[in-house]
């Protein structure tokens, strides 16, 4: 657990500094989903909920993941406004910023927000988070498919709540 914790802290730092945000979120998701299927034996981080609570208290992780998402969308907007990409040529499947294709960048982050916020009773998606997603993907985004991803995600979140 010590080794994994060390790298989880490193991944949180990467998110904070907007370094390889997509991969940081992807690896964090994978670790949280797979490393806590049985008790860890760690005195304080025994299960997934403990891990998420630790990440919140040490790093305020949900917020920094949202900040990283906003940072990515800002860079996408700059690229699009500079006219470096043809919006009619399936922009979702293109690398706009940060090495990986846009569709994956959005999908991985949305899935992380949903999973992470459901993993501990102490963590909740707040109205400010939903406003961020709505503004970035629905109002500000120049890419039509971003809206679809947003609606699909919202429906999944609502289904889980009902």
């Amino acid at each position, binding site marked *: *657990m010590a080794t*994994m914790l060390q790298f989880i802290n490193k991944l949180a730092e*990467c998110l904070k500094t907007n370094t*390889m945000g997509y991969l940081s979120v992807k690896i964090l998701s994978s670790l949280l989903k797979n490393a806590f299927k049985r008790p860890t034996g760690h005195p304080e981080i025994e299960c997934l909920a403990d891990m998420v609570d630790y990440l919140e208290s040490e790093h305020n992780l949900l917020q920094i993941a949202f900040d990283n998402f906003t940072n990515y969308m800002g860079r996408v907007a700059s690229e699009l406004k500079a006219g470096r990409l043809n919006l009619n040529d399936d922009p979702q499947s293109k690398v706009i910023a940060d090495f990986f294709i846009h569709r994956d960048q959005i999908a991985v982050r949305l899935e992380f927000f949903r999973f992470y916020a459901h993993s501990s009773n102490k963590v909740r998606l707040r109205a400010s988070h939903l406003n961020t997603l709505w503004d970035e993907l629905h109002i500000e985004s120049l890419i039509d498919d971003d809206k679809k991803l947003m609606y699909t995600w919202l429906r999944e979140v609502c289904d889980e709540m009902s």
Partner: protein
Amino acid sequence: MLVAKVAEGDKVLTEVFSKDRTHAQLVQRSEHVVRVLMEQELLTVENRQLIWDASEMNDADIKTELQKALIGVASAMNHADREFFIGKVEQVQLPDMIDRHIQLVTEICTTIKQDKESVELFEQVIARGLQLLWRVAMESGSACELRIIDRAASGFANVCVCAAIVEE
């Protein structure tokens, strides 16, 4: 008996992996031989070097077959085998890194039998694997292909989970 076995193993490996004698079909069938020698802990440093050199040969078919074989036998490797092959991948320059290097390191780190080696040795190999995969995934920038970076990230996550289980 042991001396005879080692001598036989050497002969077979030299036949299969020598630059001037080997060919893809022969290498394709070599996985079983290498596995047996590894399970018997009969591989010497020279044998390992011979296998690695063949896997980096300038022949795409032999290279592919041997790298596939190495990944296939990773679970049979002892600590010295694992250290050797991880060390070799560490020496590969980032732009030359390929899928199979990443797969090999991931397999080496996730298939160690805890009853065969001490936890400390296990942790040493895993720590080196994690450092290597982290470097490729998070620090290589545009030096590696995206496919390799993505695979290194997945491999890193798998090895990390494995490390957590070992440290329990």
